[in-house]
């Protein structure tokens, strides 16, 4: 025992434990990712971002000069507003198993692993960007998030955004608009920058440029046979959490060029005849690559997903009519509420439509419905989606799991059998 290590506090010791175990997991997953073979060269840009998790998140987020970091906890936080103040949104939704145990000191057993993992990273100095946030923004989207704010306020200032649950009503729309306006005031105070019409217009356009590449990327994903694996696609989208939108857009644009080239050259990433799978349900965040890895290792190919961390992320554009300040703020509020397919809303019509659309667009043969233990909104919706898939004639496999690696082999058997069944149906 050296004198130097003896001086570590319990908190530092726990942080070291989480850090080294996280590094080991990330290294293992990066190895699996690289084992895929035939990866697009331009994935290296995105790999670098996730490799930083091996070293305490140093360089995961690279703030530009003077840029303040605002931590966000949901897709519902309007990033256009944050960029308009010259600050940088960083989405803190977390997929790491290693910090779950720490979060369990703050939350009940039944809480979903994502919130546990997030609190773990706020409580301990493991990933540096969790501790560089000027403010955390927490939409009251699910029940866990409602209480998260109170717990997280121990570590950083938190701004709650209240959410309507019956989104199609005019009163909900008005309510949410007020929440967005309240957020603007808080942002202006925290950053010391007033959101002007010009600044807001620029940031809306900046994100729209990202959305253009996003849609191009998803059009490319429709290619048969696919030119990019589902895991790489998830990685590209997940990188948006940490990257500056402009840098991300440039990187995806290069990747898209390469992928279009691949389509022309008929480059393949999956075996011919691999089962075409769509994943949906509770969000998946790196390094929780458990299910997609099994799917693609067991002769499936993840052709589409419907996750708030991926395909839903940049799907809906801000529709500005006149470009006045009031018009833009209205348009931003609407973008985040009206088209949302999040199951926290009472009505699941939009979500059902979207899933059916994705099945057709991506020629999906089977749907894997992923529920994180304790994620009530997606769990509640299972039966509805099951029925929907039955009607559509698309088999669905429901998987309930968490971040622990313990059930990998059981999941492997189930997923493998499911994918074999899909292939058997082809006749």
């Amino acid at each position, binding site marked *: *025992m050296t004198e130097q*290590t*003896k001086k*570590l506090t*319990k908190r530092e*010791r*726990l942080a*070291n*434990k989480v850090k*080294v*175990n996280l*590094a*080991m*997991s*990330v*290294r*293992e997953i990066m190895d699996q990712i690289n084992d895929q073979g035939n990866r697009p060269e331009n994935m290296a840009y995105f790999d670098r971002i996730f490799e930083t998790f*091996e070293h305490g998140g140093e360089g995961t987020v690279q703030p530009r000069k003077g840029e303040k970091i605002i931590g966000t906890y949901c897709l519902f936080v309007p990033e256009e507003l944050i960029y308009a103040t010259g600050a940088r949104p960083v989405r803190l939704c977390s997929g790491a198993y290693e910090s779950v145990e720490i979060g369990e000191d703050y939350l009940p057993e039944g809480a979903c692993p994502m919130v546990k993992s997030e609190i773990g990273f706020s409580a301990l100095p493991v990933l540096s960007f969790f501790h560089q946030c000027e403010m955390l923004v927490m939409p009251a989207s699910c029940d866990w998030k409602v209480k998260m704010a109170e717990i997280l306020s121990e570590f950083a200032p938190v701004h709650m955004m209240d959410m309507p649950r019956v989104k199609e009503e005019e009163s909900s729309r008005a309510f949410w608009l007020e929440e967005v306006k309240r957020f603007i005031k808080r942002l202006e105070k925290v950053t010391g920058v007033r959101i002007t019409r010009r600044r807001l217009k620029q940031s809306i356009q900046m994100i729209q440029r990202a959305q253009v590449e996003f849609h191009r990327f998803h059009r490319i994903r429709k290619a048969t046979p696919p030119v990019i694996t589902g895991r790489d696609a998830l990685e590209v989208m997940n990188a948006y959490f940490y990257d500056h939108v402009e840098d991300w857009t440039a990187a995806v644009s290069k990747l898209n060029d390469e992928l279009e080239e691949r389509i022309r050259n008929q480059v393949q990433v999956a075996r011919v005849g691999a089962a075409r799978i769509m994943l949906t349900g509770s969000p998946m965040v790196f390094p929780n690559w458990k299910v997609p890895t099994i799917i693609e290792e067991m002769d499936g190919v993840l052709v589409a997903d419907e996750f708030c961390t991926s395909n839903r992320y940049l799907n809906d554009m801000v529709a500005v009519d006149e470009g006045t300040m009031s018009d833009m703020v209205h348009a931003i509020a609407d973008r985040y509420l009206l088209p949302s397919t999040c199951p926290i809303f009472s009505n699941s019509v939009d979500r059902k439509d979207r899933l059916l659309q994705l099945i057709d667009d991506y020629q999906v043969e089977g749907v894997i419905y992923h529920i994180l233990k304790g994620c009530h909104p997606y769990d509640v919706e299972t039966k509805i989606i099951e029925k929907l898939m039955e009607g559509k004639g698309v088999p669905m496999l429901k998987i309930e799991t968490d971040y622990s690696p313990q059930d990998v082999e059981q999941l492997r058997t189930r997923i493998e059998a499911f994918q074999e069944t899909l292939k058997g149906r082809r006749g």
Partner: protein
Amino acid sequence: MSYYIGIDIGSATTKVAVVDDETILGHKVVPTGVHCEETARDALDLLLHKLSLRFEDIKSVTSTGYGRRLVKFANSNISEISANVKGALWYGEQTGIQVRTIINLGGQDSKVIAIDDQGVTKNFAMNDKCAAGTGRFLETMARILEINVTELGEISLEADVPIRINSTCAVFAESEIISLVARKKLKSEIIAGAHYSIAKRLSRMAKRVGIVDQVFFDGGPALNDGLIKAMEDELATDVYVPPSVPQVTTAVGAALIARDEYQKENS
């Protein structure tokens, strides 16, 4: 002055220690070999010679370890749990550390012992027949990587990120490590990964027993700095290793027990 001897016959090495009424005079570690009684006697003779003592000077001998019943010249024998506790508490006292948890890693077994604040054994856990995650596993790994087992610690500390090793089984680990070597993984990262997997296994065992500071870590593998670091990370606490010879704690404990018993009978 009176002299007492403790003999600890482990699966890999045999340890002998000599104490007098006040302190430890010396100890010796030798490979156990096939004839463990002879090995113990030879080691003892060498040690006594070095200390200018004769076997006739010895008041009492206590043997411990898995070969304890094979030492016919011992006056008594005792389980390695009790001997380990006795020795660890003695080392603790010498350095002002109140030992409450002992983690011992031997050639083929591992144990965790909980001690209450009065120095009494409260609870313990041991591996069963399986030698997973013990010194044997480290030896296997060293052999595959073609290095000396004493080099493991230093090399592992050079690792950037330890590689996850799933099996600490002395048999299965072989194929896993060979496949990592074949994939051109760095030795340092393989070894560090193995250390973390041992540490994880031990800390699970320790959690069952209950970890209370200070934690004392002994046995041959406690000579390995890389393993100590992994233990401190996994247990998330400081780990105290007795200076220079963590293998002999149990032999010293046995010698101290020989002394206590002798003094009790002759007072």
